[in-house]
């Protein structure tokens, strides 16, 4: 008996030991006078895909953008509470936002490549962080494009403008651009909402692949997508986290009535 309990405890504690990347504590956020996030407490685990779902305007994108402080581009934003990234509060006055964003990559809703060549798009990140050696850059470009499963499609036209690519290719290019600086976490803000079903499938496969080396947080409108690709799911409603649990559990047996209503399609 004792040994059994012990072993259970051991497995439990190894589970606990899985590193926490982001620890959000009592986060509140206001756009001017409108409160967009209320008392958020979430822990994001390393090398997992965490999906954030919820109806429009529930604060899921806002939360994602808070994780790399992109939300501060809106001038009237105020926050309270803290977000610990690898143990350090990102709202700390001494915390450098550029360092945070170098470690935490972001893929946006609409593909937003720079109006440069495919090569220069990928090399942009390494270059601004001081990598200038042509040979190393060549390697980074190939590795990143391979990482984003787009190398074979573009290897012969690296000098072409990225805007000549299809929407799905552009989005994978943006993922590759993000991989080029080897981030720790990748934030994805509805990365497939502007893509057709086939491109969506490719990006989803890619996310599964990336999970091995990166922690991924993905906001999605599409509940099936969350069910397909994520390990954990957080359900947001009116700026609050209603439920946060393993994806399997949430979709098979939601604890909360509102979660159930949402994932069964009764609203949202």
């Amino acid at each position, binding site marked *: 008996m004792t040994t059994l309990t012990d072993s259970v405890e051991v497995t439990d504690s190894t589970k606990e030991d899985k590193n926490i990347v982001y620890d959000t504590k009592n986060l509140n956020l206001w756009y001017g006078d409108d409160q967009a996030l209320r008392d958020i407490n979430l822990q994001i685990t390393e090398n997992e895909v965490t999906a954030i779902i919820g109806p429009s305007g529930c604060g899921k994108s806002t939360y994602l953008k808070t994780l790399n402080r992109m939300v501060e581009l809106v001038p009237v934003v105020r926050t309270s509470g803290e977000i610990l990234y690898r143990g350090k509060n990102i709202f700390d006055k001494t915390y450098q936002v*550029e*360092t945070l964003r170098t470690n935490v990559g972001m893929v946006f809703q609409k593909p937003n490549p720079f109006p440069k060549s495919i090569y220069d798009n990928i090399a942009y*990140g390494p270059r601004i962080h001081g990598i200038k050696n042509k040979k190393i850059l060549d390697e980074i470009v190939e590795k990143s494009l391979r990482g984003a499963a787009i190398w074979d499609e573009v290897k012969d036209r690296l000098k072409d*403008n990225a805007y000549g690519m299809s929407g799905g290719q552009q989005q994978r290019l*943006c993922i590759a651009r993000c991989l080029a*600086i080897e981030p720790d976490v990748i934030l994805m803000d509805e990365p497939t909402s502007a893509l057709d079903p086939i491109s969506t499938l490719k990006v989803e496969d890619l996310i599964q692949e990336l999970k091995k080396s990166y922690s991924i947080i993905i906001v999605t409108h599409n509940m099936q997508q969350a069910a397909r690709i994520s390990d954990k799911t957080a359900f947001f409603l009116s700026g609050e986290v209603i439920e946060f649990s393993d994806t399997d559990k949430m979709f098979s047996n939601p604890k909360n009535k509102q979660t159930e209503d949402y994932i069964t399609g009764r609203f949202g």
Partner: protein
Amino acid sequence: MTDERDLRVRDMIQANKRTVTFNSIIEKCIPTILFIIAIISILTTIGILFTLIRETIYFFRDVPFLDFFTGTKLKPLGDAAEFGILPLLTGTFISSAIAMLVAIPIGLMSAVFLSEYASDKVRRILKPILEVLAGIPTIVYGFFAFTFVTPLLNRFIPMLEPTNILSPGLVMGVMIIPMIASLSEDAMSSVPNAMREGALGLGSTKLEVTWRVVIPAAMSGIISSFVLGISRAIGETMIVAIASGSSKNFTFDVTQSMQTMTAYIVEVTGGDAPAGSTLYYSLYAVAFTLFVFTLIMNLIAQYISKKFREGY
């Protein structure tokens, strides 16, 4: 009630049929009328060009082509009149170069500030003020160069002549700043925010975003603003006519008085050039050269804005 039932819209439209036919005649005539109006400006340009070319040909009967373009002496009056355009060309280029040295850096930096760094409120106040600067008549700038800037510069550069090319060049630069700032700002603020976000998301600082993403994306608009600025400087007349005097020096010394092509035309038309004289025809030759230069500038602007377009 009966009255209302009698009010049949369909009948009324029928009754107006005559107007409808009249309207359709007008509709048919409108494109022709608009075409004639539109072509007036083109015909005028062709007319001007035709006169310029004709009189320029007359000029080259009196003065050999090569003497005109390689002559370093311009002495239009007197017995041994000489018509070399080089003094005017150097005057024009030096004054334009000084102007662009002032206008390009300041204009571009202002545009960067307005587009990337200024808050909405600041931009709303500053941009109109900048554009008012563009509305100041050039004669005021010329007067300002002659009576204020030259004496001011004289304190630092004692050998500066009372009329010199430096002062009008600088003032011309100031005049062109708003144009470059405004056009470049338009080009930069039309770069989609998604690109800035993409770059910031990779850990770029604001300066890196501006320098490596926004400016390259807006490059075609920025370069066009430079080239338009240069043609404005080449074509500028009053400032140089007032503040640079009328010495037809062939020199590169900016403290001396020089004459530009435009100022030469002002001077000669202001005097009595008898119609049909070589002096009279020289006006046209100089004007034609000026026209060719501005034309080339405009063509370059068009070419550059196509070539440097980072399409998005």
